[in-house]
């Protein structure tokens, strides 16, 4: 729009008028899908240019770039406008999702610009997750390609219902109607298969601006809208939803004893003071007392509004709960069928627990069964044991808590979720819930492999065996105890094995003969191995004087799991300390085969940690032990 320079009062009126129009202007979120060289960047650059969103300095930069990197012989290369990261510019392709903004007098547009290669399926899904409409680009010379199907499939999977098929480079096929019509009718078949309800096909030339923001005179046979015309007028009406009121609680607002409000964004339906509501999954009921905002209380709140709701009764409600209308509340379940798009380099393994974020809720979820994988190019179903990066699977999920949900088709906010790796914290998958399974339908999860990695993962730690060896009285137990206390305080799962708790039970039958001593160590090592298998960090505190015994114990563990800690205190010091009076007895000949007196101690040759204890505090020694542990 143009605004003449006027006096301040005139400006106020002009801006008020503009604001009025601007305020009722709606927002449309769009994703552009195309393969390399279909002309996506050119088209987007052209849209920005045509809607006059470029400033002089940006235009100057564009002219400059066009001369240096352009592919248009120094003519303006619109594609350069929308290229972001330097690394990508060098490779000549866009890798990530970039967001572009432009607006016309009618609408503001946010465009997610995503690459189209198969290895960027996850990026496309990211862009599609927030889009209401997709522009699918096709090169008029090539017609529908494998990637056209893939792009359309991803759009359908993420619930996009409106597609504009942009048949580009019409200038290169002589603006021929029959070519366009064939592509259009082929595409309608594909779109219908993928559940896309509304398709508008537009023949255009991004390079020459034909049918981009104005109707082309070169294609008189086409009487539909230009691309921009379609974007400006298409009705996407997200708000038309058959669901009643739903709001996930994001944050509990408790400024003082007298006020407790539940802050969140309404995701479906509407609510007014006096309405009866139910809180899920607990099922407690109450009534809405007030709808609080900084701009005053509201008589009503509807989908999209960020509000704080005060209920008539004090209820125990926390982040992640869903407040819903009582007339048609959402279902609550902990077993689901869902589509998963895997986004991480490390494959999905059934049976592994992941964090699942859905609405404002964080729960633990595992895939109990992959029913099938979907080939994103052909949409064929294939059997699968795992899902690799960029693969889509249809899976059963088991959660550790029941949640309120909707099918993704009905509500993106209560049906869309992400999975997060519990050790790397990476976002590893995007998912869409289809429906709840009865537990009986999903008993498979008993059969899936819960292996040592899975057990370790659920504890969020790397299991290990810390084997403390050293003379009697050297300080093994004191150090091991301090280590365990600290690990425990840090939230790790531990266990301590020492002479006392083993000799009195498991090894009650063993004496002190050479054979019994070997058997004693063998049993202790086996128990430690089982505990490491269970995911624990185990401390073994045994004199274990013989190299061969310690070697036997070590051999039971995987590489890196066994940490031999040599607690090295001189014999005289130990004998002097003599906490249990044993050295005195041994020297008096009352005990035989006592290590250090009449039985040798074989010093470890290559312990993982050699602790010379003299003059060092137990706490410091313990810290040195902890420092050697991986993943702590």
């Amino acid at each position, binding site marked *: 729009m*143009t605004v003449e320079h*006027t006096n*301040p*009062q005139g*400006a106020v009126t*002009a*801006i008020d008028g503009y604001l009025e129009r*601007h*305020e*009722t*202007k*709606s927002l449309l979120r769009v994703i552009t899908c195309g393969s390399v060289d279909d002309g996506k960047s050119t088209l987007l650059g052209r849209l920005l240019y045509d809607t006059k969103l470029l*400033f*002089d300095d940006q235009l100057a930069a564009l002219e400059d770039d066009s001369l240096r990197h352009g592919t248009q012989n120094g003519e303006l290369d619109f594609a350069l406008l*929308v*290229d*972001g*990261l*330097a690394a990508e510019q060098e490779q000549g392709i866009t890798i*990530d999702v*970039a*967001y572009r*903004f432009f607006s016309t007098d009618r609408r*503001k547009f*946010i465009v997610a*610009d995503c690459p189209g290669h198969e290895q960027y399926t*996850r990026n496309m*899904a*990211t862009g599609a997750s*927030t889009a209401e409409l997709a522009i699918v680009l096709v090169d008029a010379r090539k017609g529908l390609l494998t990637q056209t199907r893939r792009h359309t499939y991803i759009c359908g999977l993420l619930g996009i219902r409106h597609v504009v098929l942009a048949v580009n480079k019409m200038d290169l096929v002589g603006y021929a109607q029959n070519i366009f019509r064939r592509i259009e009718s082929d595409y309608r078949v594909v779109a219908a298969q993928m559940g896309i309800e509304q398709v508008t096909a537009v023949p255009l030339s991004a390079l020459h601006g034909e049918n981009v923001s104005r109707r082309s005179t070169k294609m008189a046979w086409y009487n539909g809208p230009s691309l921009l015309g379609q974007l400006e007028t298409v009705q996407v009406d997200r*708000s038309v939803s058959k669901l009643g009121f739903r709001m996930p609680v*994001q*944050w509990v*607002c408790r400024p003082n004893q007298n*006020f407790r409000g539940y*802050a969140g*964004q309404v995701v479906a339906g509407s609510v007014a003071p006096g309405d009866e509501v139910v809180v899920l999954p607990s099922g407690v009921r109450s009534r809405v007392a007030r709808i*609080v905002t*900084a*701009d005053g209380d*509201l*008589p*009503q*709140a*509807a989908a*999209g*509004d*960020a509000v*704080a709701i005060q209920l008539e009764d004090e209820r125990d409600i926390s*982040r992640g709960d869903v407040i819903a209308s009582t007339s048609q509340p959402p279902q609550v379940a902990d077993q689901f069928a869902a589509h998963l798009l895997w986004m991480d380099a490390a494959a999905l393994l059934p049976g592994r627990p992941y*964090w699942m*974020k*859905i609405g*404002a809720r964080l729960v633990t979820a595992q895939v109990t069964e992959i029913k099938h994988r979907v080939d994103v190019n052909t949409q064929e179903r294939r059997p699968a044991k795992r899902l690799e990066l960029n693969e889509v699977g249809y899976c059963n999920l088991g959660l550790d808590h029941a949640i309120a949900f909707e099918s993704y088709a009905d509500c*993106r*906010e209560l049906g*869309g979720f992400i999975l997060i790796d519990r050790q790397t*914290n*990476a*976002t590893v998958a995007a998912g869409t819930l289809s429906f709840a399974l009865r537990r009986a339908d999903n008993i498979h999860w008993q059969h899936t492999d819960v292996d040592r990695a899975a057990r370790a993962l659920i504890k969020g730690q790397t299991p290990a065996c810390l084997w403390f060896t050293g003379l009697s009285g050297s300080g093994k137990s004191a150090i091991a105890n301090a280590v365990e206390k600290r690990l425990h305080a840090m939230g790790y799962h531990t266990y301590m094995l020492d002479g006392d708790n083993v000799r009195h039970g498991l090894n009650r039958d063993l004496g002190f003969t050479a054979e019994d001593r070997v058997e004693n160590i063998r049993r202790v090592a086996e128990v430690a191995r089982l505990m490491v298998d269970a995911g624990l960090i185990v401390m073994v505190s045994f004199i274990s004087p013989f190299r061969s015994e310690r070697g036997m114990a070590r051999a039971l563990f995987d590489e890196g799991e066994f940490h031999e800690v040599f607690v090295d205190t001189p014999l005289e010091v130990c004998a002097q300390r003599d906490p249990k009076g044993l050295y005195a007895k041994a020297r008096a000949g009352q005990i035989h085969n006592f290590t250090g007196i009449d039985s040798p101690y074989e010093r470890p040759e290559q312990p993982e940690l050699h602790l010379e204890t003299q003059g060092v505090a137990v706490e410091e020694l313990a810290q040195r032990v902890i420092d050697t542990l991986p993943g702590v």
Partner: protein
Amino acid sequence: MNLAATPDDSAQPRHRSSPEADLKALAASSHLKRLEAESIYIMREVAAEFSNPVLLYSVGKDSSVLLHLMQKAFHPAPPPIPMLHVDTTWKFREMIAFRDRRAKETGCRLLVHTNREGLEQGVGPFTHGAAVHTDIMKTQALKQALAQYKFDAAIGGARRDEEKSRAKERVFSFRNAQQRWDPKSQRPELWSLYNARIHKGESVRAFPLSNWTELDIWLYIYRENIEVPSLYLARERPVVERDGRLIMVDDERMPLAPGEVPQMRKVRFRTLGCYPLTAAIESQADTLPAVIQEMLVARTSERQGRVIDHDVGASMEKKKQEGYF
């Protein structure tokens, strides 16, 4: 509108809302309202998911909008997130006064951090150049502050429309324990499900204004009567011309060439930063509507005014990797 130190503005709050209008707006769900709700949602996620978040407050228009949104997000509770200003000691004087006053008025806890070593070494834009000054007094200072207070999340006012490399920025932008941004290891961000899980020492920068444009910011400021420093409005100000840029002489530290005399020109600023690094534009727009009106016909982008972007060839992306934002 309600601008600081602008006695003559037609600053009557406008009463434009009536119950009917409220309902109508509700039904229409305008795009400003959608943006506002989205930003509030993001701020609440930060407050709920992190144990020690902070709001990076730069005193400019985007920060003013952030502060306003923060008041809305947690109403009726006071903002539970403190704000941090990295003071390079070269900000416009008006910015500092404005900052302190707004902190008092909103009841939001204000933390101010200055790079002490930099200050002791006398680092400044005139002596060390824009790039070094910005690196030491802004980038390094910010890192110091984040490390010192052990913030696990920092809310910033960056927008995706500002610059090409920002177009790909996440709403929750992950930083490793060295506070670096790696464009290759950003987490995919679907729907409005932000992954806030981090290990000790790692952090997240959250950008609630990601989807706003400069025009949205101004229209929102106007609609909501948000107070911004009057530096945004055209006034007669003492300026000198350097390499074609108008630099305001805000204090006596500005070295003048022999015979150089600051001239009074009617100028305003499109962004606010260190005064020697922030170019003014000549303008007659001395009211907010006039500024918006000028914007609508403007032919240069707001970054034009930031000297730092032109000082070295380094791209925005590089600065971001180093932790500039």
